[in-house]
């Protein structure tokens, strides 16, 4: 019977798309971290190979924290599904044993929970095989890292945390409480680890980490780069002890659950479950009277009211969504754990958490989650009416065609801006916790909320555009993700690095305490504006093809688009010419007035330089024996003089 329940659980989950979605999310995250420098998961890899066994095992350790909220969904449902789906009365009156039921469900869900973890291996294997990575950044594949990652981190951590989550769900029969429990587990973990940091005994600290991350870093502290490139850690030494301790804790929790769990309904719980319809008697005796007479108006004013009301509805629908909250929690956890890098320069050097450093951390560890929100929720929001089957009612309502498109785009953008604000707050809190008080709110605003905010709007528009044009939710997701990856890596490979071509790209905005934004802000904003104009072009084309009604074929939609175009012609040409003109202006500035050298070209120039001047290598050179400086600084001007006197020996 145990095996039967276990198999049933496995079959149940293998049909659920969420398992594969989580797998994909993890794979993408690790893919990003393995194939680019701008995405970090856990600590920075440094000069170790990106596919070193040490790195892979470490990914598994970090991901057991991030995947905790994912597996909560599985364990929670395995334990409490019968209560939420109301099958408990059918199921629990069959002659199954408590032991078979509990452990069958538990181990079934645990086995399924390993699937999302495998995204780590897949993401790393694919990510490090990408052609744009330098050969020196990767080494041969060591399967031991993958194997140990799963055996030493994924499974034991699942058994420990999973037992706690499963126990909460099975004993309280409440689906929300176990989510709260897993969040509590995460927060408690982060706080306790900060406290343990101060413990003198390294070994004790290593034992007190239930997820084994500290243990791993203590045990591998003296590993050289070469060790890290070739070795991973199995069940040995400190790690073995730690794993045994915390798996036993998990086991104890399961034993406790076994004794406390009961098939019988809790008294009084059925009363609460009564739905609203029971509370409502059939229609009152009232007979129908003539309807109130109203006079609908269709002015610009009402269009704006319609837009605002629709934005409000869309924004709330995203913010109330459980999946959204889960993604954001991942993001916040990753951001908070990365915040320690704002004060660390590596090699034991600490620095002040100045605002531009903190902003770098936010961009590095939080923005990937914002991009995930953009990816996931543009699809969800564009398909919202059709997914909830209210489209027939909606599409026949007398609003103009632009209202849904604009409201959805703006709503998503507002959500992203809100999240950026949350990132800023986490950053400011970190600064204050370190006792650092020189907080530059204007830098937060300009860099994150303003410049990055516009940039996200361009990507939201692009994703909305894809979803409208392909008119298939999953194809839309796929295309957008594929585009993002291609956009990041294909242009450099083709030796095209123009910010006018790589979607959403713009020059770097460097802030320094002395120079502030210096001359960079103007160019940055100009390019963001260029992409904003282009995304408007995309939105107008999207508006032409916006589906209203049940017509699916591209041909019919094109016909309708042509119909709409007669009205939208001036708007379309305005944004198109605006974009082209502004692009020409930027082209003139960046390519004609200034020289533009791609990195490959630069490399070529360097090698030619070397070839040309190599012959002078052994010619005696002047050597500096003393320097006498006369330095005048003009912070408002970018003019510097460097006068230097040299003596020839």
């Amino acid at each position, binding site marked *: 019977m145990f095996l039967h329940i276990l198999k049933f659980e496995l079959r149940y989950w293998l049909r659920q798309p969420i398992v594969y979605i989580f797998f994909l999310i993890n794979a993408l995250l690790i893919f990003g971290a393995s194939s680019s420098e701008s995405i970090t998961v856990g600590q920075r890899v440094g000069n170790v190979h990106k596919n070193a066994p040490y790195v892979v095992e470490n990914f598994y350790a970090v991901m057991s924290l991030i995947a905790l909220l994912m597996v909560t969904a599985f364990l929670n449902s395995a334990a409490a599904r019968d209560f939420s789906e109301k099958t408990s009365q059918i199921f629990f009156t069959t002659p199954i044993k408590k032991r078979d039921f509990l452990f069958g469900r538990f181990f079934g869900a645990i086995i399924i929970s390993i699937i999302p973890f495998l995204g780590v291996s897949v993401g790393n294997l694919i990510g490090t095989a990408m052609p744009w990575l330098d050969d020196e950044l990767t080494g041969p594949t060591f399967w031991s890292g993958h194997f140990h990652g799963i055996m030493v981190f994924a499974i034991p951590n699942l058994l420990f945390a999973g037992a706690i989550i499963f126990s909460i769900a099975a004993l309280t029969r409440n689906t929300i409480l176990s989510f709260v429990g897993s969040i509590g587990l995460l927060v408690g973990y982060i706080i306790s680890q900060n406290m343990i940091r101060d413990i003198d005994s390294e070994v004790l600290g290593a034992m007190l980490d239930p997820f084994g991350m500290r243990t791993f870093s203590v045990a591998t502290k003296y590993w050289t780069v070469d060790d890290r490139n070739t070795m991973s850690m199995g069940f040995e030494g400190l790690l073995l002890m730690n794993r045994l301790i915390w798996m036993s804790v998990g086991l104890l929790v399961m034993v406790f659950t076994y004794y406390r769990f009961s098939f019988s309904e809790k008294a009084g719980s059925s009363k609460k479950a009564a739905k*609203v319809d029971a509370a409502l008697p059939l229609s*009152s005796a009232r007979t129908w009277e003539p309807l*109130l007479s109203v006079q609908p108006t269709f002015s610009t004013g009402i269009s704006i009211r319609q837009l605002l009301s629709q934005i409000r509805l869309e924004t709330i629908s995203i913010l109330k969504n459980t999946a959204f909250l889960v993604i954001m929690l991942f993001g916040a956890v990753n951001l908070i754990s990365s915040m320690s890098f704002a004060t660390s320069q590596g090699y034991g050097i600490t620095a002040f958490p100045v605002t531009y450093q903190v902003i770098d951390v936010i961009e590095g560890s939080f923005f990937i989650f914002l991009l995930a929100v953009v990816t996931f929720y543009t699809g969800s929001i564009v398909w919202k009416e059709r997914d909830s*089957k209210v489209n027939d*009612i909606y599409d*026949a309502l*007398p609003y103009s065609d632009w209202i849904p498109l604009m409201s959805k785009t703006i709503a998503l953008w507002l959500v992203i801006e809100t999240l950026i604000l949350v990132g800023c707050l986490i950053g400011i809190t970190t600064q204050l916790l370190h006792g650092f008080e020189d907080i530059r709110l204007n830098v937060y605003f300009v860099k994150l909320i303003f410049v990055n905010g516009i940039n996200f709007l361009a990507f939201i528009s692009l994703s909305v555009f894809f979803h409208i044009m392909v008119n298939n939710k999953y194809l839309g997701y796929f295309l957008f993700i594929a585009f993002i990856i291609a956009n990041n890596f294909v242009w450099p490979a083709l030796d095209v690095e123009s910010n006018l071509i790589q979607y959403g790209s713009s020059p770097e905005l460097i802030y320094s305490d002395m120079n502030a934004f210096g001359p960079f802000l103007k160019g940055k904003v100009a390019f963001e504006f260029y992409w904003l104009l282009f995304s408007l072009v995309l939105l107008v084309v999207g508006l032409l093809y916006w589906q209203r009604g049940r017509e699916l074929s591209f041909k019919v939609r094109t016909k309708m688009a042509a119909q709409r175009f007669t009205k939208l012609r001036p708007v379309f040409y305005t944004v198109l010419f605006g974009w082209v003109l502004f692009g020409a202006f930027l082209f003139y500035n960046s390519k004609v007035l200034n020289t533009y050298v791609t990195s490959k070209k630069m490399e070529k120039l360097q090698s030619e330089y070397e070839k040309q001047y190599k012959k002078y290598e052994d010619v005696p050179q002047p050597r500096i024996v003393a320097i006498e400086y006369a330095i005048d600084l003009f912070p408002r001007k970018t003019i510097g003089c460097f006068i230097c006197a040299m003596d020839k020996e």
Partner: protein
Amino acid sequence: MRTIATLQEPDSGSILLGDLDVLKDKLELRKILGYLPQEFGVYPKVSAYDMLDHIAILKGIDKQRKVVVEDLLKRVNLWDVRKKALGGFSGGMKQRFGIAQALLGDPKLIIVDEPTAGLDPGERNRFYNLLSEIGEQVIVILSTHIVEDVKELCSQMAIIDKGRVLYSGSPENALQAVEGKIWKKQVPKQEVPEFSDTHPVISTRMVAGKPMVHVFSNTSPGSGFDPVQADLEDVFFTHIKGFQTSTLLS
């Protein structure tokens, strides 16, 4: 119905409402339309009031919105649950919500597709009373599988089978056309298949546990057959089975 409600393009043909070319100027039709689709969902996490209020804005109702929304919620008896999320509504409550949104904003053209599914008999009567009352001033297009409703409610009807219009005209004319041509006979269960092969059977229904066969025939089909006072169901089956096509207007 979807095509009239601006949701689908026709393969060919045109739709005119007065001077309004529906296929060209969809927005103008939507401004006067109240539409209740056969199947529809709701946003599970939005409350009935918020949703109806939002739809009212989309229907161009601004100043009188509060009064109208509250009035409609009371009429469809969702007032007590107006703050509850739509996701918790039963089928009947959802249907009532659908009716409320269709009636919002004084529509001049009301299209209701199977509107009474999930309503209890009392509510169905009240809703039909309302529809026939509204129908005195505005156009109501109703589809239903409950054939007798048509006689009570409609001045014009059409029978559509697999996309083809088999009859269109008034219910009275339709009844007159088959009057005296419908006959019934009680037949033992095992003989029904054979009987159907030899007679123009339009329908078989159970009466007190025994099959009662209705037959279409201009003259009495033989002994044991009694004439029937034809109802619209007989009209319906006569057309569906293809025994009568003469009244088709095109």
